[in-house]
């Protein structure tokens, strides 16, 4: 039986990368769409996102994708959020002067501190851009076959502090502990970009394609 994956297309950012990485990871049927029927008919859903969160959420809501996603999550469809997709699942973000998000998870997304530095006083650049290690602080089927502290590609200026949520399943350290991944029920979301994280990212996507949504 062919499994279908819907990548939610709300007009923000480059969805081809997500689509081609899913295909490389083994997905045979990938639809990039905002159509509620197509999304609800899919066996699994990817919620990507890049750019400013206020614009992302405005478009997402305008297209009615928030209602569609809520319904799909209630039905138990496995969902993978990526980057701003993950941040949008939280209760709130401080970006763009403060934005109410979708509220699938408690917690507020914040900016890295201005004049950010590590414990030795060395300046840390923002965006947090590049390959950082992810410590798997909770077991999850999506970590199967991926080494603890494996490298993933991050690119973001806003983040979910680890202390903000009980659902953190992966941590990164950038002078401050941040949430690299969060999970609850049939929803898994990453701050990093699995579609840009080479073998580790492709493995995570392959795990998502076989995940039954139970953890």
């Amino acid at each position, binding site marked *: 039986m062919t499994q279908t994956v819907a990548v939610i297309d709300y007009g923000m*950012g*480059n969805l*081809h*990368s997500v689509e*081609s*990485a899913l295909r*490389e990871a083994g997905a045979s049927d990938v639809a990039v769409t905002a159509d509620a029927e197509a999304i609800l008919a899919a066996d699994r859903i990817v919620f990507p996102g*890049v*750019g*400013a969160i206020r614009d992302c959420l405005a478009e997402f809501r305008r297209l009615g994708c928030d209602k569609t996603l809520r319904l799909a999550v209630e039905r138990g469809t496995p969902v993978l959020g990526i980057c701003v997709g993950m941040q949008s699942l939280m209760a709130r973000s401080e970006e763009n002067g403060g934005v109410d998000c979708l509220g699938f998870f408690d917690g507020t997304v914040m900016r890295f501190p*201005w*004049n*950010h530095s*590590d414990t030795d006083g060395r*300046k*840390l*650049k*923002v*965006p*947090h*851009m*590049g*390959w*950082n*290690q992810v*410590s798997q602080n909770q077991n999850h089927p999506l970590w199967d076959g991926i080494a603890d*502290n494996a*490298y993933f*590609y*991050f*690119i*973001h*200026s806003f983040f979910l502090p680890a202390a903000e949520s009980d659902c953190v399943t992966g941590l*990164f*350290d*950038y002078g401050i502990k941040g949430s690299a991944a969060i999970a609850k029920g049939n929803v898994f979301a990453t701050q990093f*970009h699995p*579609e*840009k*994280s*080479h073998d580790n*990212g*492709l493995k995570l996507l392959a795990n998502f394609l076989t995940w039954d949504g139970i953890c």
Partner: protein
Amino acid sequence: MSLAKRIIPCLDVDQGRVVKGVNFVGIRDAGDPIEIARRYNDAGADEITFLDITASHEQRDTTYRTVEQIASQVFIPLTVGGGVRAVTDIRRLLNAGADKVSINTAAIFNPDLVRESAERFGSQCIVVAMDVKALDDGSGRYELFTHGGRKPTGIEAIEWAQKMADFGAGEILLTSMDRDGTKDGYDLPITRAISDAVDIPVIASGGVGTLDHLVAGFTDGGADAVLAASIFHFGTYTVAEAKAHLAQSGIAIRV
């Protein structure tokens, strides 16, 4: 645990073919950017930069197609630069599969392009490329140049970097025109000065000839990433050798 320093092979592409020659050990020069990008992806490169040096505007469709094909086969970040003049160019490149777009000359003639595109697409995908030369007046100052280092702008390099960061650039690609192609190593003083002057990541470029030059780019230059073309293209070193050397030198690197 820490953020790894990045190694970025750079492809100069003219009308859909890699120029400057590429000659991997044991593999004949292909000139095909898709094949070469795929090889660097497999070899452990942290990112790939694609600079379109095609002079004529009519050839741009070739570029978009090439970017699309690279993006469908490469699962690491892809930066595309060259000939970016307007917001619509940026949108098309991002839609074609670029993760970041590098703006050079257009930023000088129209700095608001940087502000506008950072607001629209997010700072994370806007790279400002700077070609600089040391002034020969003994001042230790550096000036911004355009047209491959031929045309001076009268703009001082550090001030420009700060202005671009304020305008929303997410990263700076700093090329020393004095060092480019020399194999004498990166221009470390200006790399350090700009890295210290801005809070966004800085990529060192121009002049790398040895693996110790890569190390110096990070340690003395304070760069967050190093760009290299010929040492990798001609097979002088592999990406793996470069990473092993950096790791031995105490640089945090993704292996």
